[in-house]
């Protein structure tokens, strides 16, 4: 090329151009995957949300009809209510539980490695197996939960999954059993907080509560942000429990959003991928808005050690 001559004087690949080129080389696998498995399908999904489509015959264009129908669909509102309630209960409780566990397991006490293993164990066995197990634990007649309540607290336990009132709290309770993966992340975060900070604060006379709020929380704030966002997203997509344990019941008490969506698109007697796509898009907007709010607010409370700050 012609510019080889000028290369000696002023290289074409300046430092920042080279860095930019390598940036794209490094992220290229994701860009490809994004175009093929995300961007294309998303555009298609939006198109389908404007149609009715039973897969057997070609999609029929409806305009915004699906969205309009959703506003008067009682099941849609019920599924949204169930999912929101579950999220509001399980995400904050889950973070509190996981952080509490991590703080305990960060102490220098005997057998700590053993306890860490035990506390993490339930997260390793998520999914269908855990749903099956809890179906059995929550069994009102023969399960250990009601046995424990009766034996130790002399309480007649509720019907749990068979009760309209208790079915959703049952699933929240079950979710608290498996918060181990965020616990591990918090533990990693806690151990990444420089001990010098704690020592300095102690010398300055800061007591444990102050040290927690002023050193621990900022120190693990990136991890907190991560678990908060992913927790909300995961909770809005709850499916397995509804599918395996309750089939959305009793009386739609655990009729999760994605369970309704799955029924509409794949599992029900009448399939409408168009209607399901409209539901999916509404879910996307909800989750997106919530996350943007968290990310924007994170500028106020999240700190990175290696971050480029001018």
């Amino acid at each position, binding site marked *: 090329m012609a510019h080889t001559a000028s290369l000696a004087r002023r290289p074409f690949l300046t430092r920042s151009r080279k860095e930019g080129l390598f940036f794209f080389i490094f*992220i290229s696998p*994701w860009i490809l995957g994004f175009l093929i498995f995300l961007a294309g399908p998303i555009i298609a999904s939006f198109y389908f949300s404007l149609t009715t489509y039973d897969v057997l015959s070609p999609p029929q264009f409806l305009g915004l009809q699906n969205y309009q129908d959703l506003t008067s669909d009682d099941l849609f509102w019920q599924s949204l209510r169930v999912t929101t309630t579950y999220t509001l209960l399980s995400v904050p409780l889950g973070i509190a539980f996981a952080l509490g566990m991590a703080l305990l397991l960060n102490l220098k006490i005997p057998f700590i490695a053993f306890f860490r293993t035990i506390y993490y164990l339930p997260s390793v066995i998520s999914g269908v197996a855990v749903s099956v197990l809890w179906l059995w634990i929550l069994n009102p007649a023969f399960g250990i939960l009601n046995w424990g309540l009766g034996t130790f607290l002399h309480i007649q336990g509720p019907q749990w999954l068979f009760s309209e009132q208790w079915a959703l709290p049952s699933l929240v309770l079950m979710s608290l059993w498996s918060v181990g993966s965020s616990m591990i992340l918090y533990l*990693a975060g806690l151990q990444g907080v420089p001990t010098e900070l704690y020592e300095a604060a102690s010398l300055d006379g800061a007591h444990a509560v102050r040290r927690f709020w002023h050193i621990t929380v900022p120190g693990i704030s990136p991890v907190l942000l991560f678990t908060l966002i992913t927790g909300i997203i995961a909770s809005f997509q709850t499916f397995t429990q509804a599918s395996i344990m309750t089939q959305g019941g009793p009386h739609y008490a655990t009729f999760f959003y994605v369970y309704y969506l799955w029924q509409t698109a794949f599992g029900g007697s009448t399939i409408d991928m168009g209607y399901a796509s409209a539901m999916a898009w509404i879910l996307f907007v909800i989750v997106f808005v919530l996350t943007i709010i968290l990310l924007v607010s994170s500028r106020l409370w999240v700190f990175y050690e*290696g971050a480029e700050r001018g």
Partner: protein
Amino acid sequence: MDERQGPDPGRPGLAQQRKKRRGLVGKAIALAVVSVGALFILAPVFWMLSTSLKTLDQTLAFPPVWIPPSLQFKNYPDALSVLPFGTFARNSAIVTLTVLVGEVLTNSFVAYGFARLRGPGRRWIFMVLLSTMLIPFPVLVIPQYLLFKNLGWIDTFLPLIVPPWFGSAFLIFLVRQFYMTIPRELDEAAEIDGCGYFSIYFRIIMPLAKPALASVAIFSFTYNWNDYLAPLIYLDSPSNFTLPLGLASFLGRPGTVIPWHQLMAASLVTVLPCVLLFFFAQRFFIQGIVVSGVKG
């Protein structure tokens, strides 16, 4: 350590002793709390094991029998012969391991770009990446299903295996967050020593990020081993079922009484590889996490 710096040099032991005693009491309380918590966490697991070794009649006893009088080990071969669990296990292994290798390689590679290299529009592209993480799988699953249907991939493992090899926003974000905590001075020093971006990535960042890669591997394995929705949608014939699908079909079999003893046996066998992997990889996992405090 600081023992000589007590306020009263004449009686250096006393304050120290009191402090030590208070520390011991605190530790004892902490140990008690942690132990009680551990009991609550272990009870369900023990209950699963116990049920899996009972007769069907014993599972329906109240109050529950914690330790069955005679251990019914035959529940395991019985449960595993009711449905072809060997096939399910093989299918799960193929899918999970193929995905795991791809996710560790791709995500750590892509994360380096986002954490360290400035390119035009990086901030904007990263926002797009984050927003893809927010896209509910169901938004994608319908058009992806139709795409894979056109490719003739339905009822094969390909829809489960191929997309993860292009990276997942969740794991890229996780690794990138970790890279951000590695001091930039290390990169800069290596650059001054003449390292290019690939060698900074392979020699500096990757080795320091082992704990993050271990967590990617563990997340990837446990997620895919336990994944239910995607296999449920993409796999039709029982000979292609993964373990979670097999377990679900066990539960859904028509019959008056659920065979809890066999169901628990099958569940235990399903979760066993994850538990073993965790016990096996845990030391490296936690030890690696400690390394994150990069001192140097």
